Protein backbone atom coordinates (compact mmCIF):
# COMPACT_ATOMS: atom_id res chain seq x y z
CA UNK A 1 0.00 0.00 0.00
CA UNK A 2 1.23 3.46 -0.85
CA UNK A 3 1.30 6.06 1.85
CA UNK A 4 -0.52 9.01 0.29
CA UNK A 5 1.14 11.57 2.54
CA UNK A 6 4.52 10.66 1.06
CA UNK A 7 3.56 11.27 -2.56
CA UNK A 8 5.10 14.47 -3.91
CA UNK A 9 2.47 16.93 -5.08
CA UNK A 10 4.17 17.67 -8.36
CA UNK A 11 2.79 18.67 -11.73
CA UNK A 12 4.39 18.62 -15.14
CA UNK A 13 3.18 20.94 -17.87
CA UNK A 14 3.98 20.09 -21.47
CA UNK A 15 3.88 23.50 -23.11
CA UNK A 16 3.29 23.41 -26.85
CA UNK A 17 3.75 26.35 -29.12
CA UNK A 18 1.34 26.01 -32.05
CA UNK A 19 2.49 24.83 -35.47
CA UNK A 20 2.95 27.05 -38.51
CA UNK A 21 -0.28 28.94 -39.12
CA UNK A 22 -1.91 29.96 -42.35
CA UNK A 23 -1.41 33.72 -42.29
CA UNK A 24 -4.30 35.81 -43.54
CA UNK A 25 -3.85 39.55 -42.93
CA UNK A 26 -7.50 40.09 -43.71
CA UNK A 27 -8.54 38.19 -40.62
CA UNK A 28 -7.52 38.46 -36.96
CA UNK A 29 -4.65 36.17 -36.05
CA UNK A 30 -6.85 34.53 -33.46
CA UNK A 31 -8.90 33.04 -36.31
CA UNK A 32 -6.03 31.54 -38.26
CA UNK A 33 -5.77 27.82 -38.76
CA UNK A 34 -2.72 25.75 -39.61
CA UNK A 35 -0.86 25.79 -42.90
CA UNK A 36 -0.24 22.48 -44.69
CA UNK A 37 3.23 22.08 -43.20
CA UNK A 38 1.82 23.04 -39.81
CA UNK A 39 -0.73 20.23 -40.03
CA UNK A 40 2.01 17.74 -40.92
CA UNK A 41 4.12 18.94 -38.01
CA UNK A 42 1.15 18.57 -35.67
CA UNK A 43 0.85 14.95 -36.77
CA UNK A 44 4.53 14.43 -36.12
CA UNK A 45 4.04 15.72 -32.59
CA UNK A 46 1.76 12.76 -31.99
CA UNK A 47 4.79 10.47 -32.37
CA UNK A 48 6.48 11.80 -29.27
CA UNK A 49 6.29 9.67 -26.14
CA UNK A 50 6.60 12.77 -23.98
CA UNK A 51 2.82 13.02 -24.28
CA UNK A 52 2.16 9.42 -23.21
CA UNK A 53 1.61 10.35 -19.57
CA UNK A 54 -0.48 13.45 -20.22
CA UNK A 55 -3.82 13.11 -18.47
CA UNK A 56 -5.35 16.04 -20.32
CA UNK A 57 -4.85 18.11 -23.45
CA UNK A 58 -5.76 21.81 -23.32
CA UNK A 59 -5.38 24.64 -25.76
CA UNK A 60 -6.24 28.24 -26.18
CA UNK A 61 -9.46 28.66 -28.22
CA UNK A 62 -7.66 29.72 -31.42
CA UNK A 63 -8.00 27.14 -34.23
CA UNK A 64 -4.24 26.90 -34.77
CA UNK A 65 -3.74 25.89 -31.12
CA UNK A 66 -6.54 23.35 -31.06
CA UNK A 67 -5.37 21.88 -34.37
CA UNK A 68 -1.77 21.61 -33.18
CA UNK A 69 -2.68 19.43 -30.24
CA UNK A 70 -5.57 17.52 -31.85
CA UNK A 71 -3.47 14.69 -33.40
CA UNK A 72 -1.61 14.23 -30.12
CA UNK A 73 -4.84 14.01 -28.14
CA UNK A 74 -6.29 11.59 -30.70
CA UNK A 75 -3.21 9.35 -30.42
CA UNK A 76 -4.10 9.02 -26.75
CA UNK A 77 -7.84 8.59 -27.27
CA UNK A 78 -8.68 12.06 -26.03
CA UNK A 79 -9.85 15.40 -27.34
CA UNK A 80 -8.38 18.83 -26.89
CA UNK A 81 -10.28 20.94 -24.41
CA UNK A 82 -10.38 24.67 -25.21
CA UNK A 83 -9.40 26.90 -22.30
CA UNK A 84 -9.72 30.68 -22.71
CA UNK A 85 -6.95 31.22 -20.17
CA UNK A 86 -4.47 29.76 -22.66
CA UNK A 87 -5.30 32.10 -25.53
CA UNK A 88 -2.50 34.07 -27.17
CA UNK A 89 -1.97 37.50 -25.64
CA UNK A 90 -4.66 39.75 -26.96
CA UNK A 91 -3.69 42.03 -29.87
CA UNK A 92 -5.56 44.24 -32.28
CA UNK A 93 -5.00 44.87 -35.95
CA UNK A 94 -2.42 43.64 -38.43
CA UNK A 95 1.12 44.76 -37.70
CA UNK A 96 3.50 43.64 -40.41
CA UNK A 97 7.25 43.04 -40.17
CA UNK A 98 9.27 45.58 -38.20
CA UNK A 99 6.25 47.17 -36.56
CA UNK A 100 5.17 43.81 -35.18
CA UNK A 101 8.68 43.03 -33.87
CA UNK A 102 9.06 46.38 -32.15
CA UNK A 103 5.67 45.88 -30.51
CA UNK A 104 6.69 42.46 -29.22
CA UNK A 105 9.90 43.98 -27.86
CA UNK A 106 7.85 46.51 -25.90
CA UNK A 107 5.59 43.68 -24.74
CA UNK A 108 8.50 42.04 -22.90
CA UNK A 109 10.42 45.19 -21.97
CA UNK A 110 7.49 46.87 -20.23
CA UNK A 111 5.33 43.97 -19.08
CA UNK A 112 2.95 46.17 -17.12
CA UNK A 113 2.09 48.40 -20.05
CA UNK A 114 0.20 47.63 -23.27
CA UNK A 115 2.78 47.54 -26.07
CA UNK A 116 0.24 48.89 -28.53
CA UNK A 117 -3.32 50.18 -28.27
CA UNK A 118 -5.72 47.45 -27.12
CA UNK A 119 -2.94 44.89 -26.68
CA UNK A 120 -2.92 42.86 -23.50
CA UNK A 121 0.03 43.43 -21.18
CA UNK A 122 2.51 40.62 -20.57
CA UNK A 123 1.78 40.74 -16.84
CA UNK A 124 -1.97 40.43 -17.30
CA UNK A 125 -1.56 37.60 -19.80
CA UNK A 126 0.82 35.70 -17.53
CA UNK A 127 -1.58 36.09 -14.63
CA UNK A 128 -4.56 34.66 -16.52
CA UNK A 129 -2.44 31.81 -17.90
CA UNK A 130 -1.11 31.00 -14.42
CA UNK A 131 -4.64 31.08 -13.01
CA UNK A 132 -5.78 28.57 -15.63
CA UNK A 133 -2.79 26.37 -14.82
CA UNK A 134 -3.70 26.44 -11.15
CA UNK A 135 -7.28 25.42 -11.94
CA UNK A 136 -5.96 22.43 -13.86
CA UNK A 137 -3.47 21.53 -11.14
CA UNK A 138 -6.38 21.25 -8.74
CA UNK A 139 -8.09 18.94 -11.22
CA UNK A 140 -5.11 16.66 -11.92
CA UNK A 141 -3.56 14.68 -9.05
CA UNK A 142 -0.28 12.75 -9.14
CA UNK A 143 -0.71 9.32 -10.67
CA UNK A 144 -0.19 6.54 -8.14
CA UNK A 145 0.89 3.12 -9.36
CA UNK A 146 1.60 0.10 -7.16
CA UNK A 147 4.91 1.02 -5.60
CA UNK A 148 5.52 4.37 -7.25
CA UNK A 149 3.95 7.65 -8.20
CA UNK A 150 4.38 10.03 -11.11
CA UNK A 151 3.66 13.74 -11.37
CA UNK A 152 0.31 14.84 -12.70
CA UNK A 153 1.00 15.78 -16.30
CA UNK A 154 -1.04 17.71 -18.83
CA UNK A 155 -0.36 19.41 -22.16
CA UNK A 156 -1.16 23.01 -23.02
CA UNK A 157 -1.02 24.52 -26.50
CA UNK A 158 -0.79 28.25 -26.81
CA UNK A 159 0.96 31.04 -28.66
CA UNK A 160 4.59 32.13 -28.57
CA UNK A 161 4.13 35.43 -26.76
CA UNK A 162 1.83 33.84 -24.22
CA UNK A 163 4.11 30.94 -23.41
CA UNK A 164 7.15 33.19 -23.15
CA UNK A 165 5.30 35.65 -20.93
CA UNK A 166 4.21 32.80 -18.66
CA UNK A 167 7.73 31.35 -18.40
CA UNK A 168 9.13 34.83 -17.74
CA UNK A 169 6.62 35.31 -14.97
CA UNK A 170 7.27 31.83 -13.56
CA UNK A 171 11.07 31.83 -13.75
CA UNK A 172 11.87 35.53 -13.47
CA UNK A 173 13.32 36.03 -16.95
CA UNK A 174 14.81 39.41 -17.74
CA UNK A 175 13.32 41.27 -20.72
CA UNK A 176 16.40 40.34 -22.77
CA UNK A 177 16.10 36.68 -21.93
CA UNK A 178 12.39 36.68 -22.65
CA UNK A 179 12.96 38.26 -26.04
CA UNK A 180 15.70 35.81 -26.88
CA UNK A 181 13.47 32.91 -25.81
CA UNK A 182 10.64 34.21 -27.97
CA UNK A 183 12.91 34.66 -31.00
CA UNK A 184 14.22 31.09 -30.67
CA UNK A 185 10.82 29.44 -30.53
CA UNK A 186 10.06 27.03 -33.33
CA UNK A 187 6.71 26.13 -34.85
CA UNK A 188 5.61 23.87 -33.27
CA UNK A 189 7.76 23.66 -30.19
CA UNK A 190 7.67 21.88 -26.85
CA UNK A 191 8.93 22.56 -23.34
CA UNK A 192 8.33 20.63 -20.14
CA UNK A 193 7.98 22.57 -16.91
CA UNK A 194 7.75 21.08 -13.44
CA UNK A 195 5.75 22.71 -10.66
CA UNK A 196 6.33 21.17 -7.25
CA UNK A 197 4.78 21.99 -3.91
CA UNK A 198 8.14 22.10 -2.17
CA UNK A 199 10.58 23.34 -4.80
CA UNK A 200 10.87 26.26 -7.20
CA UNK A 201 9.47 25.76 -10.70
CA UNK A 202 11.96 24.44 -13.21
CA UNK A 203 12.24 23.77 -16.91
CA UNK A 204 12.88 20.06 -17.48
CA UNK A 205 13.05 20.20 -21.29
CA UNK A 206 13.77 23.47 -23.03
CA UNK A 207 11.92 24.81 -26.03
CA UNK A 208 13.83 23.87 -29.18
CA UNK A 209 15.06 20.53 -27.89
CA UNK A 210 12.30 18.32 -29.29
CA UNK A 211 11.43 20.30 -32.38
CA UNK A 212 9.75 18.19 -35.05
Amino acid at each position, binding site marked *: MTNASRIPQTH*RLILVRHAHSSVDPARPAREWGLADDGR*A*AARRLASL*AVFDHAAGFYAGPEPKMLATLAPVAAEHGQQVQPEPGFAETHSEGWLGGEQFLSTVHRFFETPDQPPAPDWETAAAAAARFAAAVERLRARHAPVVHPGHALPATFAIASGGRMLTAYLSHLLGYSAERALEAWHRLKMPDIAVVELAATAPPRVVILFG*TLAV
Partner: protein
Amino acid sequence: MAGRAQAFSDPTVIALASERFVPVAENCSPLQSQRDAKGEFFRLVAEQGHYAGHTYPTGTRQGYYTFTADGKVLAAMNSRDPQRMIDLMQTALRRWHTLVDLAVATNGHAGNGAASRADAVPDYVPARPSLYPEGGFVLQLAARDLPREVDTRKDDWRRHAWNLDYAWFTRDEARSLVPEILTPGNRKQAPREIVRRLARFHLRDFVRGEPSVWPEEAIRHGELIAEIVEVSGDRVRLALRGAILLQREAHWVRPEDGEERRSDTGFDATLVGAATWDAARRAFTSFDLLAAGPRCGANQYNNRSDDLGPAPMGIAFTLAGHEPRDRTPPHTIYHRDYFVA
Protein backbone atom coordinates in the same frame (compact mmCIF):
# COMPACT_ATOMS: atom_id res chain seq x y z
CA MET B 1 19.16 -10.25 -15.70
CA ALA B 2 15.40 -10.87 -15.56
CA GLY B 3 15.02 -8.79 -18.69
CA ARG B 4 17.46 -11.03 -20.52
CA ALA B 5 15.75 -14.14 -19.21
CA GLN B 6 12.31 -13.02 -20.30
CA ALA B 7 11.89 -10.31 -22.89
CA PHE B 8 15.25 -10.66 -24.60
CA SER B 9 15.04 -14.39 -25.03
CA ASP B 10 11.82 -14.04 -27.05
CA PRO B 11 12.50 -14.65 -30.78
CA THR B 12 10.22 -11.83 -31.93
CA VAL B 13 11.85 -9.39 -29.53
CA ILE B 14 15.30 -10.49 -30.68
CA ALA B 15 14.36 -10.07 -34.33
CA LEU B 16 12.80 -6.63 -33.85
CA ALA B 17 15.59 -5.36 -31.62
CA SER B 18 18.40 -6.58 -33.84
CA GLU B 19 16.89 -5.81 -37.25
CA ARG B 20 14.86 -2.63 -36.74
CA PHE B 21 16.68 -0.85 -33.92
CA VAL B 22 20.21 -0.09 -32.79
CA PRO B 23 20.34 -1.69 -29.33
CA VAL B 24 22.22 0.17 -26.61
CA ALA B 25 22.66 -0.96 -23.00
CA GLU B 26 23.68 1.51 -20.33
CA ASN B 27 23.81 1.70 -16.56
CA CYS B 28 21.24 4.34 -15.68
CA SER B 29 22.39 4.92 -12.11
CA PRO B 30 25.40 7.16 -12.84
CA LEU B 31 23.80 8.69 -15.93
CA GLN B 32 20.92 10.07 -13.92
CA SER B 33 23.28 12.65 -12.42
CA GLN B 34 26.38 12.49 -14.61
CA ARG B 35 27.39 16.05 -15.51
CA ASP B 36 28.52 15.66 -19.09
CA ALA B 37 27.05 15.29 -22.56
CA LYS B 38 26.27 11.64 -22.08
CA GLY B 39 24.42 12.22 -18.83
CA GLU B 40 22.61 15.20 -20.31
CA PHE B 41 21.45 13.12 -23.26
CA PHE B 42 20.27 10.30 -21.00
CA ARG B 43 18.27 12.70 -18.86
CA LEU B 44 16.68 14.25 -21.94
CA VAL B 45 15.57 10.77 -22.98
CA ALA B 46 14.51 9.68 -19.51
CA GLU B 47 12.44 12.81 -18.87
CA GLN B 48 10.21 11.91 -21.82
CA GLY B 49 9.73 8.32 -20.74
CA HIS B 50 7.73 6.18 -18.36
CA TYR B 51 9.44 7.52 -15.23
CA ALA B 52 9.48 11.19 -16.23
CA GLY B 53 9.40 13.20 -13.03
CA HIS B 54 9.51 10.07 -10.91
CA THR B 55 10.84 10.90 -7.45
CA TYR B 56 8.84 8.58 -5.25
CA PRO B 57 9.80 6.20 -3.75
CA THR B 58 13.06 6.52 -5.71
CA GLY B 59 14.25 8.59 -8.61
CA THR B 60 15.19 5.64 -10.76
CA ARG B 61 14.91 5.95 -14.52
CA GLN B 62 15.59 2.29 -15.29
CA GLY B 63 13.68 0.69 -18.10
CA TYR B 64 13.50 0.44 -21.86
CA TYR B 65 13.52 3.45 -24.15
CA THR B 66 13.15 3.63 -27.90
CA PHE B 67 14.41 6.95 -29.17
CA THR B 68 15.75 8.76 -32.19
CA ALA B 69 19.40 9.67 -32.54
CA ASP B 70 18.63 13.25 -31.54
CA GLY B 71 16.82 12.20 -28.37
CA LYS B 72 13.13 12.08 -29.18
CA VAL B 73 11.56 9.21 -27.27
CA LEU B 74 9.07 7.19 -29.30
CA ALA B 75 7.97 4.76 -26.60
CA ALA B 76 9.25 3.68 -23.19
CA MET B 77 8.37 1.36 -20.34
CA ASN B 78 9.81 -0.71 -17.51
CA SER B 79 8.50 -4.23 -17.99
CA ARG B 80 10.08 -7.59 -18.69
CA ASP B 81 6.99 -9.01 -20.34
CA PRO B 82 7.86 -10.09 -23.91
CA GLN B 83 4.50 -9.11 -25.38
CA ARG B 84 4.74 -5.66 -23.86
CA MET B 85 8.25 -5.37 -25.27
CA ILE B 86 6.95 -6.28 -28.73
CA ASP B 87 4.12 -3.75 -28.38
CA LEU B 88 6.63 -1.11 -27.30
CA MET B 89 8.84 -1.65 -30.34
CA GLN B 90 5.92 -1.78 -32.75
CA THR B 91 4.55 1.47 -31.33
CA ALA B 92 7.97 3.02 -31.72
CA LEU B 93 8.26 1.87 -35.33
CA ARG B 94 4.82 3.23 -36.19
CA ARG B 95 5.70 6.55 -34.62
CA TRP B 96 9.08 6.61 -36.30
CA HIS B 97 7.45 6.20 -39.69
CA THR B 98 5.05 9.03 -38.88
CA LEU B 99 7.96 11.28 -37.98
CA VAL B 100 10.02 10.43 -41.02
CA ASP B 101 7.32 10.09 -43.67
CA LEU B 102 5.63 13.35 -42.76
CA ALA B 103 8.96 15.14 -42.51
CA VAL B 104 9.90 13.99 -46.01
CA ALA B 105 6.47 14.89 -47.33
CA THR B 106 6.87 18.44 -46.10
CA ASN B 107 10.50 18.72 -47.15
CA GLY B 108 11.67 18.76 -43.56
CA HIS B 109 13.66 16.22 -41.62
CA ALA B 110 13.05 14.07 -38.62
CA GLY B 111 15.23 15.86 -36.14
CA ASN B 112 16.59 19.37 -35.98
CA GLY B 113 17.25 19.80 -32.30
CA ALA B 114 20.44 17.83 -31.94
CA ALA B 115 22.98 20.23 -33.35
CA SER B 116 22.14 23.13 -31.10
CA ARG B 117 21.97 20.89 -28.06
CA ALA B 118 25.30 19.27 -28.84
CA ASP B 119 26.84 22.73 -28.91
CA ALA B 120 25.42 23.48 -25.50
CA VAL B 121 26.88 20.60 -23.52
CA PRO B 122 30.49 19.80 -22.72
CA ASP B 123 32.47 16.93 -24.18
CA TYR B 124 32.17 13.49 -22.66
CA VAL B 125 34.13 13.24 -19.47
CA PRO B 126 33.55 10.11 -17.37
CA ALA B 127 31.97 11.18 -14.13
CA ARG B 128 33.75 8.43 -12.27
CA PRO B 129 37.35 7.28 -12.73
CA SER B 130 37.91 3.83 -14.19
CA LEU B 131 39.12 1.44 -11.52
CA TYR B 132 39.81 -1.37 -13.99
CA PRO B 133 42.90 -3.25 -12.76
CA GLU B 134 45.12 -3.00 -15.86
CA GLY B 135 47.29 -6.10 -16.04
CA GLY B 136 45.38 -7.50 -13.10
CA PHE B 137 43.15 -10.43 -12.42
CA VAL B 138 39.58 -10.15 -13.70
CA LEU B 139 36.94 -12.81 -13.18
CA GLN B 140 33.52 -13.23 -14.67
CA LEU B 141 30.77 -14.52 -12.37
CA ALA B 142 27.59 -16.38 -13.18
CA ALA B 143 25.02 -16.99 -10.45
CA ARG B 144 22.01 -19.32 -10.54
CA ASP B 145 19.88 -21.49 -8.32
CA LEU B 146 20.94 -25.13 -8.15
CA PRO B 147 18.56 -28.11 -8.44
CA ARG B 148 16.31 -28.73 -5.44
CA GLU B 149 14.73 -31.90 -4.17
CA VAL B 150 11.44 -30.11 -3.57
CA ASP B 151 10.88 -27.13 -5.83
CA THR B 152 8.18 -24.69 -4.76
CA ARG B 153 9.26 -21.87 -7.05
CA LYS B 154 6.71 -20.55 -9.52
CA ASP B 155 7.15 -22.12 -12.92
CA ASP B 156 8.15 -18.89 -14.64
CA TRP B 157 11.32 -16.84 -15.12
CA ARG B 158 12.22 -17.33 -11.47
CA ARG B 159 13.04 -20.99 -12.11
CA HIS B 160 15.43 -20.06 -14.87
CA ALA B 161 16.93 -16.88 -13.47
CA TRP B 162 20.66 -16.28 -13.70
CA ASN B 163 22.86 -13.24 -13.54
CA LEU B 164 26.36 -12.07 -14.42
CA ASP B 165 28.91 -9.92 -12.71
CA TYR B 166 32.65 -9.30 -12.73
CA ALA B 167 35.21 -9.37 -9.92
CA TRP B 168 38.36 -7.27 -10.04
CA PHE B 169 41.69 -8.01 -8.36
CA THR B 170 45.06 -6.39 -8.86
CA ARG B 171 48.13 -8.08 -10.33
CA ASP B 172 49.70 -8.22 -6.86
CA GLU B 173 46.56 -9.80 -5.44
CA ALA B 174 46.73 -12.50 -8.09
CA ARG B 175 50.29 -13.34 -7.07
CA SER B 176 49.28 -13.41 -3.42
CA LEU B 177 47.09 -16.45 -4.07
CA VAL B 178 50.04 -18.59 -5.16
CA PRO B 179 52.47 -20.23 -2.68
CA GLU B 180 55.90 -18.55 -2.62
CA ILE B 181 57.81 -21.74 -3.33
CA LEU B 182 56.45 -23.49 -6.39
CA THR B 183 56.58 -27.06 -5.19
CA PRO B 184 53.72 -29.58 -5.32
CA GLY B 185 51.99 -29.89 -1.96
CA ASN B 186 52.72 -26.30 -0.90
CA ARG B 187 49.68 -24.39 0.23
CA LYS B 188 48.79 -20.75 0.53
CA GLN B 189 45.94 -19.19 2.48
CA ALA B 190 44.38 -16.37 0.48
CA PRO B 191 44.94 -12.97 2.09
CA ARG B 192 42.10 -11.62 4.15
CA GLU B 193 41.45 -8.83 1.64
CA ILE B 194 40.72 -11.28 -1.18
CA VAL B 195 38.41 -13.40 0.96
CA ARG B 196 36.69 -10.25 2.20
CA ARG B 197 36.09 -8.96 -1.34
CA LEU B 198 34.80 -12.32 -2.52
CA ALA B 199 32.51 -12.62 0.47
CA ARG B 200 31.08 -9.14 0.79
CA PHE B 201 30.81 -8.16 -2.86
CA HIS B 202 30.58 -11.37 -4.85
CA LEU B 203 28.78 -13.96 -2.76
CA ARG B 204 25.61 -11.90 -2.82
CA ASP B 205 22.36 -13.54 -3.86
CA PHE B 206 22.07 -11.65 -7.13
CA VAL B 207 20.38 -14.47 -9.07
CA ARG B 208 17.13 -12.50 -9.32
CA GLY B 209 18.13 -8.96 -8.54
CA GLU B 210 20.54 -6.47 -7.07
CA PRO B 211 21.07 -6.97 -3.35
CA SER B 212 23.31 -4.64 -1.42
CA VAL B 213 26.74 -5.79 -0.25
CA TRP B 214 27.20 -7.90 2.86
CA PRO B 215 28.44 -5.85 5.82
CA GLU B 216 31.80 -6.79 7.27
CA GLU B 217 30.19 -8.34 10.34
CA ALA B 218 28.17 -10.75 8.18
CA ILE B 219 31.35 -12.74 7.49
CA ARG B 220 31.18 -15.49 10.11
CA HIS B 221 33.90 -17.58 8.55
CA GLY B 222 36.05 -17.26 5.45
CA GLU B 223 39.00 -19.05 3.96
CA LEU B 224 40.34 -19.90 0.53
CA ILE B 225 43.35 -22.16 0.15
CA ALA B 226 45.42 -22.76 -2.97
CA GLU B 227 47.49 -25.93 -3.09
CA ILE B 228 50.03 -26.69 -5.80
CA VAL B 229 49.18 -30.03 -7.41
CA GLU B 230 51.59 -29.99 -10.35
CA VAL B 231 54.51 -27.95 -11.70
CA SER B 232 55.54 -28.26 -15.31
CA GLY B 233 58.11 -25.66 -16.36
CA ASP B 234 56.53 -22.26 -15.76
CA ARG B 235 53.09 -23.84 -15.56
CA VAL B 236 51.79 -24.30 -12.02
CA ARG B 237 48.51 -26.12 -11.46
CA LEU B 238 46.60 -25.27 -8.30
CA ALA B 239 43.67 -26.82 -6.48
CA LEU B 240 41.38 -24.31 -4.77
CA ARG B 241 39.18 -25.05 -1.78
CA GLY B 242 37.65 -23.18 1.05
CA ALA B 243 34.44 -22.03 2.70
CA ILE B 244 32.71 -18.76 3.41
CA LEU B 245 29.76 -18.38 5.75
CA LEU B 246 27.72 -15.19 5.60
CA GLN B 247 24.85 -14.40 7.96
CA ARG B 248 22.95 -11.28 8.85
CA GLU B 249 19.50 -10.03 9.60
CA ALA B 250 18.63 -7.82 6.67
CA HIS B 251 16.37 -4.92 7.42
CA TRP B 252 15.05 -2.21 5.19
CA VAL B 253 12.27 0.32 5.07
CA ARG B 254 9.78 0.02 2.28
CA PRO B 255 9.65 3.48 0.76
CA GLU B 256 6.08 2.94 -0.36
CA ASP B 257 4.65 2.82 3.14
CA GLY B 258 7.52 3.40 5.53
CA GLU B 259 7.11 -0.11 6.92
CA GLU B 260 10.22 -1.81 8.25
CA ARG B 261 10.98 -5.29 6.91
CA ARG B 262 13.39 -7.87 8.33
CA SER B 263 14.72 -11.18 7.07
CA ASP B 264 17.35 -13.63 8.24
CA THR B 265 19.68 -13.95 5.29
CA GLY B 266 22.70 -16.11 4.69
CA PHE B 267 24.90 -18.02 2.30
CA ASP B 268 26.88 -21.04 3.45
CA ALA B 269 29.26 -21.46 0.53
CA THR B 270 31.71 -24.25 -0.09
CA LEU B 271 34.51 -23.20 -2.44
CA VAL B 272 36.15 -25.59 -4.85
CA GLY B 273 38.10 -25.04 -8.03
CA ALA B 274 41.28 -25.23 -10.07
CA ALA B 275 43.67 -22.70 -11.56
CA THR B 276 46.81 -22.50 -13.66
CA TRP B 277 49.52 -19.98 -12.83
CA ASP B 278 52.09 -18.95 -15.41
CA ALA B 279 55.17 -18.22 -13.33
CA ALA B 280 56.97 -16.50 -16.22
CA ARG B 281 54.11 -14.13 -16.99
CA ARG B 282 53.12 -13.96 -13.31
CA ALA B 283 49.48 -14.32 -14.28
CA PHE B 284 46.71 -16.88 -14.18
CA THR B 285 46.01 -18.54 -17.52
CA SER B 286 42.97 -20.33 -16.15
CA PHE B 287 40.91 -19.89 -13.00
CA ASP B 288 37.69 -21.73 -12.20
CA LEU B 289 36.11 -21.47 -8.78
CA LEU B 290 32.65 -22.54 -7.70
CA ALA B 291 30.93 -21.22 -4.58
CA ALA B 292 27.92 -23.40 -3.84
CA GLY B 293 25.66 -24.02 -0.88
CA PRO B 294 22.39 -23.06 0.75
CA ARG B 295 21.25 -19.44 0.75
CA CYS B 296 18.32 -18.05 2.66
CA GLY B 297 16.28 -14.94 3.20
CA ALA B 298 15.27 -11.86 1.27
CA ASN B 299 16.43 -8.29 1.11
CA GLN B 300 15.17 -5.15 -0.51
CA TYR B 301 16.18 -5.79 -4.09
CA ASN B 302 16.89 -9.50 -4.49
CA ASN B 303 13.33 -10.53 -5.39
CA ARG B 304 13.36 -13.46 -2.98
CA SER B 305 10.32 -12.66 -0.86
CA ASP B 306 8.59 -15.75 -2.34
CA ASP B 307 11.65 -17.97 -2.01
CA LEU B 308 13.15 -17.58 1.43
CA GLY B 309 14.86 -20.96 1.43
CA PRO B 310 17.18 -22.37 2.55
CA ALA B 311 17.79 -23.44 -1.04
CA PRO B 312 20.95 -24.15 -3.00
CA MET B 313 22.67 -21.46 -5.07
CA GLY B 314 25.87 -21.55 -7.08
CA ILE B 315 28.20 -18.78 -8.18
CA ALA B 316 30.84 -19.74 -10.74
CA PHE B 317 33.98 -17.62 -11.21
CA THR B 318 36.07 -17.93 -14.33
CA LEU B 319 38.80 -15.89 -15.97
CA ALA B 320 37.32 -13.03 -18.01
CA GLY B 321 38.32 -12.42 -21.60
CA HIS B 322 39.67 -9.31 -23.26
CA GLU B 323 36.64 -8.08 -25.17
CA PRO B 324 35.30 -4.62 -24.32
CA ARG B 325 32.40 -6.29 -22.48
CA ASP B 326 34.93 -7.95 -20.19
CA ARG B 327 35.80 -4.53 -18.81
CA THR B 328 32.27 -4.17 -17.42
CA PRO B 329 32.73 -3.03 -13.82
CA PRO B 330 31.54 -5.16 -10.93
CA HIS B 331 28.05 -4.19 -9.79
CA THR B 332 29.41 -2.81 -6.55
CA ILE B 333 32.70 -1.35 -7.78
CA TYR B 334 31.98 2.12 -6.44
CA HIS B 335 31.31 0.92 -2.91
CA ARG B 336 33.87 2.63 -0.69
CA ASP B 337 35.12 -0.70 0.66
CA TYR B 338 35.56 -2.55 -2.65
CA PHE B 339 39.27 -1.81 -2.97
CA VAL B 340 40.84 -1.34 0.42
CA ALA B 341 44.59 -0.87 0.49
